[in-house]
């Protein structure tokens, strides 16, 4: 009776994924050394790329794994930047302000999650947009911000320009690596399975012991925190805080584009999507309006014709699983080989 259960084992890492992790580690080291040889322009662009990766990974965690599609995540992007300004205005070092601001965003997102997670589907999606509008308007009530005109993080001027660029670069790189690791850890844990189960069928998940509220709240808060970090870092790199820009729904458009193109619900997909978006932006954003039109059109095309994105397609064709969060049941004598 019990032969089968004894003849199989559970595989999580595949050889290719081991190589991938080592490779990712090497890339990180290389990136960390970049300030030694890269030009200021490159460092600055890479900083933007890292922030895109954070945004895509967070939105993907929420939508791809949690099934929570939101067009209001700019709420936390804006808040991250706002609190950085607010705290720095009290006289704290701007980089310490970044960390504090992200924490505050995480904390604030908790009560928001209590309300918003009760909504489903499209109501959640647009409800979050309304939340973003509310937060935007509330931030505007702060006299420091001067309404839509915004204000700059002048305390950054204490650092000289080269030093400042390097600090921001390394801080962003570190944040990205840390946040990706955090996400990967959470998604691979049993919480990750629960998150996906809730996405697919909340009622069934509840009936086998999952606590959907808690699990979703955790995911929501992590995503908000991550996006808060992104917003705060963006501010250090851009210096100027303008409520309308930071709370713009455009950020949601970017996140959606990155995740759809890269591959929704694929950990690697979000990263790939961010890189693609970054390249597209670098090469084509000078075409202005047409660039934005194409972003929208490409997002539509992907969601209709390649719903699993580029990574999903690669995964299907070549059976790549570099950063697997799932499980495979394999026969014990076939272990250590990638499944066909």
């Amino acid at each position, binding site marked *: 009776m019990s032969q089968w259960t004894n003849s*199989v084992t559970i595989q999580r890492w595949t050889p290719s994924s081991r190589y991938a992790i080592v490779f990712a580690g090497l890339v990180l080291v290389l990136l960390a050394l970049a300030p030694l040889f890269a030009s200021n322009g490159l460092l600055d662009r890479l900083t933007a790329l890292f922030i895109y990766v954070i945004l895509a990974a967070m939105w993907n965690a929420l939508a791809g794994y949690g099934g929570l599609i939101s067009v209001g995540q700019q709420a936390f992007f804006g808040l991250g930047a706002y609190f950085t300004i607010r705290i720095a205005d009290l006289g704290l070092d701007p980089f310490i302000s970044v960390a504090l601001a992200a924490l505050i965003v995480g904390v604030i997102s908790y009560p928001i999650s209590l309300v918003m997670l009760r909504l489903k589907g499209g109501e959640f999606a647009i409800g979050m947009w309304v939340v973003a509008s509310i937060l935007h308007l509330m931030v505007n009530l702060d006299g420091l911000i001067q309404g839509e005109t915004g204000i700059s993080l002048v305390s950054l001027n204490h650092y000289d320009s080269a030093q400042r660029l390097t600090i921001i670069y390394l801080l962003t790189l570190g944040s990205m690596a840390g946040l990706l690791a955090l996400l990967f850890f959470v998604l691979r844990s*049993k919480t990750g399975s629960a998150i*996906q189960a809730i996405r697919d069928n909340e009622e*069934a998940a509840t*009936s*086998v012991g*999952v606590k*959907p509220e808690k699990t979703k709240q955790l995911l929501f808060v992590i995503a908000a925190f991550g996006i808060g970090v992104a917003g705060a870092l963006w501010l250090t790199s851009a210096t100027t805080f303008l409520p309308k820009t930071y709370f713009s729904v455009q950020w949601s458009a970017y996140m959606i584009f990155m995740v759809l193109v890269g591959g929704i619900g694929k950990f690697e997909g979000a990263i790939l999507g961010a890189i693609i978006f970054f390249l597209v932006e670098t090469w084509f954003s000078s075409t202005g309006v047409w660039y934005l039109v194409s972003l929208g059109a490409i997002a539509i095309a992907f969601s209709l014709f390649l719903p699993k994105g580029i990574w999903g397609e690669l995964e299907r064709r070549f059976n790549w699983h570099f950063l697997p969060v*799932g499980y*495979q049941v394999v026969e014990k004598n076939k272990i250590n080989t990638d499944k066909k």
Partner: protein
Amino acid sequence: MTHAVSNGLLASDLVKNFGSVSVLKNINFSMNADEAVGIVGPNGAGKTTLLSALAGAFQLDQGSILLNNQDVTEKCASARCNLGVVRTHQIPKPFDGMTVFENVLVAASYGVDADKQTAYQHTLNAIQLSGMEHVANRQAESLGLLDRKRLELARALATQPKILLLDEIAGGLTEAESVQLVDTIKELRRQGIGIIWIEHIVHVLLQVAERLICMDSGEIIADGEPQAVLSNPQVVKAYLGGGIE
């Protein structure tokens, strides 16, 4: 047949309305933790609703539920699952985006307090018990109806239930398939798991149930030894018609 049970389920005075329709009307029900109870009744009688009430899928309008003398009325489905009461769904609700193994693993990890290796073991056992070894790595989305129903069962089993609530898991099975299913359920009975089983295919149900309940219009109209219930004229009139016996 409500009697105080120190070890089992005791539901008193359950009332549930959907809008203006009252679906459960003062249901009183009890079972011992090691009993096998069959539930029959016409369509729309409220069987599934009763099962959902016991499993904690919604809040009752009135009434209370005791499990092993502990009041669980206010407890949600996941808490009740942790206490050992778990259900399957009449219309299967698989986690479409996950493999069969992952589906069952969620149940094994959350239904009962278990470390990782134990959870794996529970998962594999449940998969084997419900005959899904060959599809363990399949995406649940691609399963046919039969395997979906099996998956419902496997998921429920992986939570190591003490009382298992089954909702029409034999519907649409061929004869051979139902034989297999009955064997599985009998195995669970040997392990001492209590069972409540809703089924319209009465002859399958009778192979397992030691006690039969018939519901009609939100009320229990008969409860007791299966043959006696089946020959109850009220049951015949409301449920069986001339179809059986």
